[in-house]
């Protein structure tokens, strides 16, 4: 596998607080992605990165920001968490011809 680690695996936070989720990879892949998965919506792209400090918005980027200061780390920040951001968040990397590999996810609950 692509050595993708997401942290934390589970988090409960209060409305209005900032939250940062981390995705760490060990194989120097260029492209990294953040998706959220919700019942009835499948997986939707939040933000993606095509290199260090190179990021762009996905389909559902409002309320989220990302940073990639090192190849191996891609951070997703919820500046002020809302209940609508309760979801399961997945990080993925593009492994060229081997396709996309996903992390095990972070289950975030905003109360």
């Amino acid at each position, binding site marked *: 596998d692509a050595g993708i680690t997401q942290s934390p695996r589970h988090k409960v936070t209060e409305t209005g607080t900032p939250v940062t989720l981390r995705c760490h990879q060990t194989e120097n892949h260029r*492209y990294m*992605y953040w*998706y959220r998965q919700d019942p*009835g*919506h*499948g*997986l*939707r*792209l939040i933000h*993606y990165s*095509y290199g260090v400090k190179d990021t*762009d918005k*996905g*389909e559902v980027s409002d309320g989220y920001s990302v940073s990639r200061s090192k190849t191996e780390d891609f951070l997703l920040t919820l500046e002020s968490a809302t209940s609508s951001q309760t979801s399961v968040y*997945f990080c*993925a990397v*593009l492994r060229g011809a*081997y*396709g*996309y*590999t*996903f*992390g*095990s*996810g972070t289950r975030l609950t905003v109360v």
Partner: protein
Amino acid sequence: TQLLEQSPQFLSIQEGENLTVYCNSSSVFSSLQWYRQEPGEGPVLLVTVVTGGEVKKLKRLTFQFGDARKDSSLHITAAQPGDTGLYLCAGDGNAGNMLTFGGGTRLMVKP
């Protein structure tokens, strides 16, 4: 926005039965991927189809890419309880290497 519609959303069958899952779009994709996801884990890539009309087989699973590269199907022969899971199709429109996911088909195979 490129949309992928999967059908059926839910499927409950007996062991030994055959089934087909469909993934349809009005958009053309440069490639289409199928993933399987188990509870608490990220999606795992099963196959990538690239050429219109392409058929790929993975043991009892047969994947087909439509001639126009707008749709795909997954056929499982003699389903087994181990096939239980969420099946996701995803299209790569080649815009920044971003995947668009279908809503998923939740399959349960009863012994």
